[in-house]
Every structure is written in structure tokens, then in C-alpha cells.
């Protein structure tokens, strides 16, 4: 079981839900399950080409990542956090 955690800025897309537990072995699997369960979030985290939006931060188990390596394994207690943008003024 991995847990996604969302900034409250995303409340309009998540209906106020700040976390989501998913079962997956890889980051890619976890992301796909997250989008399946919360499809409205996808357009806000990823651009039209599927790349993480430039000012959105994602931490996987405390490590800042741009999600390039989506094949990386995740553990049963992994935390995947999407944070509010901190750039842009």
C-alpha cells in the first residue's frame, strides 16, 4: 500500500480529499491507479504531454523527483507527495 498526499490547493479537483491509498509495486503503477481513482487530478499534475507540470513538486519517500523513472519500485509504506508550487512569485 502506498499513500498519495495532495496539497490543499488541489481541493477543487480532489473534492477536498488530501490523501489516497493505492496498491502498486512501482511508481508507474501507483500513478496510474491514482489517476484511475481520481481522474480530475491528472490534468493539474501533468501537462498535455504527460510530463509533470514545471512548477509542481513531487516527493517520493522524501526525495524530490520529476518522475522521470516511473519504473522505480515503491514499498508498502511509500509516501508520494504533490506539493504546492513554490515558484512563480
Amino acid at each position, binding site marked *: 500500500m502506498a499513500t498519495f498526499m495532495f496539497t490543499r*490547493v488541489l481541493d*477543487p479537483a480532489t473534492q477536498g480529499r488530501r490523501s489516497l491509498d493505492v496498491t502498486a509495486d512501482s511508481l508507474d503503477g501507483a500513478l496510474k491507479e491514482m489517476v484511475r481513482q481520481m481522474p480530475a487530478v491528472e490534468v493539474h499534475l501533468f501537462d498535455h504531454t504527460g510530463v509533470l507540470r514545471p*512548477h509542481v513538486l513531487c516527493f517520493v519517500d522524501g526525495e524530490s523527483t520529476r518522475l522521470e523513472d516511473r519504473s522505480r519500485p515503491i514499498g508498502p509504506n511509500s509516501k508520494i507527495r504533490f506539493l504546492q508550487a513554490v515558484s512563480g512569485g
Partner: protein
Amino acid sequence: MQLAIGTEKGGYVLDPATGQVDGPVFPGWKVTAFGRVPGGDHLAGVGSNWFGAAVHRSPDFSEWSQVEAGPGYGEERALSEIWTFHAVGDTVYTGVAEAGLFRSDDGGTTWSGVEGLNQHRTRDQWVPGGGGLCAHSILEADGTMWAGISAVGVFRSEDGGVTWEPKNEGIPSPLSEPDAPRPEVGYCVHALAHDPAVPDRIWRQDHAGVFRTEDGGDTWERIENGLPAGFGFVMCRDHATQRLFTVPLHSDGNRVPVDGAFRSYVSEDDGDSWHVAGAGWTDTPDYSSVLRGAVASDGDGTIAIGTTTGSVWVTEDAGDKWACVPARFPRIGAVSLL
């Protein structure tokens, strides 16, 4: 009567009679457009410079949910902002940036591109202007449609939106070379209005001034008699009185009212001449401007105008008397009557 106010930081509901404000909805997000599914849900265009844009839907303007299968170009190009909604029969259209139109035939649940415009043969010549590259104005009457795209121009469709042709003859060429041939596109329309009873007479607030067509856009003529400036973003028709309203700004390089005199101007002769609309305006210098989506009319005397400094002006007698509502908001980009 209540007003929906879309701002840089959330959406609000305003009772102009009392100044009571409810909200915000979508706190922290830009609310860029309001609309309504024919006979059904409210719609809101909501966006963020960081998290992108989406359409939200509500049965009561209180509980909102994001449309999951919203408008989008797929991997072809980005959709960065929702600019307008326009209902035609059972269909609702939205105009977006990067410029294009999308339509929903199922109450806003799913959306598909208006490909005759979105894939237009001139598309590779569409270049963003100061306001980006957005489709912001939609008109329709008896199967004929018009779309206004900033920095591109007006397009007309005579087959219900299947095929489109640019209609900008009479608008000054965007090219500075006097002998250069007129390009098909590159005309920066800011707003459109018409009277459905006479649909081919269209008024156009353009980057280059104020214009009118009597033939559905085939030819345009300048109509600025009495205006202190031709620049602006507003064109609004009160159908009951056949009055036409705009809010002039000094120029494209100085987008504020001339001499700080914030006023709406009215034409009572279909644009032949203009004068200050009624009374109630402040003599205090006011350098607010009005953006293209921040004007709403019920067509029967009530008009509301939101400004870039967060004030809201309302008339309920077709412009004879204006009052500034005692409430202030973040920069206003969208106004709608509820």
C-alpha cells in the same frame, strides 16, 4: 438578482443591492468564465498558472465538481485557460486558450473539439498577442456562428460550426508595411456583440478600435464618434432598449481610462455616436479597466461591470443610473448574472 464574480483568487456571489458576499468558491484559483448548460447546471472555467485549467459544474452554484472528460487537445497542444461559455439549443460551447472551441451535447459531461476551427488551414499563422491566444467570443443565430480569437480575428461559420472563414475586411492590417498584402489572420478582436433580432449587425471592440458590420462580418466600418478612445475590451448590447455599451481605455500602450475618468459609454443609434452612459460615476480619479469577460447583461436593462481593481458597477435601468457596489474583490475577469 445576484452576480457571480470570477477573480484572480476565487469566485464569489454578490448581492449588489446589499453588498453581501458569499464565497470564495475555488479559493486561490482563477475563475475565468461562467456559463450554464441549457436548462441545467452552472459551469465555471477555473484555472491556475501552475496547475492548469478545467471546467467545473454545479447544480446550485454551491457544490461544484470538476468535469473529468473536459475540453482538451490531447498531446497536440496545451489548453491553458477557459475563456467563455455559450449555449446554442441543447449544446454548450466553450472558447479556450490555446485558441479553439469545444462543444458539449450532453450537459457538460463530455466535450469534443470544433475541428473546423481548431484545425483551420490558417492555424500555423495564429500568433499570440498580449492576452495570449484565446477564443473568447461566440455568437450564434439561425445556424450561423461567429467566433472571436484574440490576435487572430473573427471567423464565421454558415453550417453550424463545421467550416469557418476569416471575416475581417475593413479592420486595419496588422502589418506596418503600407504595401504589404492584407493577411488572412492577425486581427486582434477583443469583444463581439449583436442583437439576435438583427444577427448580421455585429459590433466589435477591437485592438484597433470600435467597428460595426451590417453584413455578418463581410465588411467592417469604424464607429468611434464621441468616444474618448477606441481601445478597450467591452462590447455589450441591451436588447430591450437597443443600447450599446463599451468602456474606453486610453490606448494599447496605456490601458486605463482617459484622464482617470472611469465611465461606460453608450450608443443609442447602433454605434453611429457615443456619449457617457447616464449618471452615478465618481469624480474621484479611477484608473480601473474592464476585461472582456467582466461584463454581463440580462438584455432587459440590467448590466454589471467588474473591474481590474475589484469594484463592481451595476445599472438596472439600461445605463441611466450606475452604482458602485460596496464590496471589493481581487482583479475581476468574469461576471455573470445568476
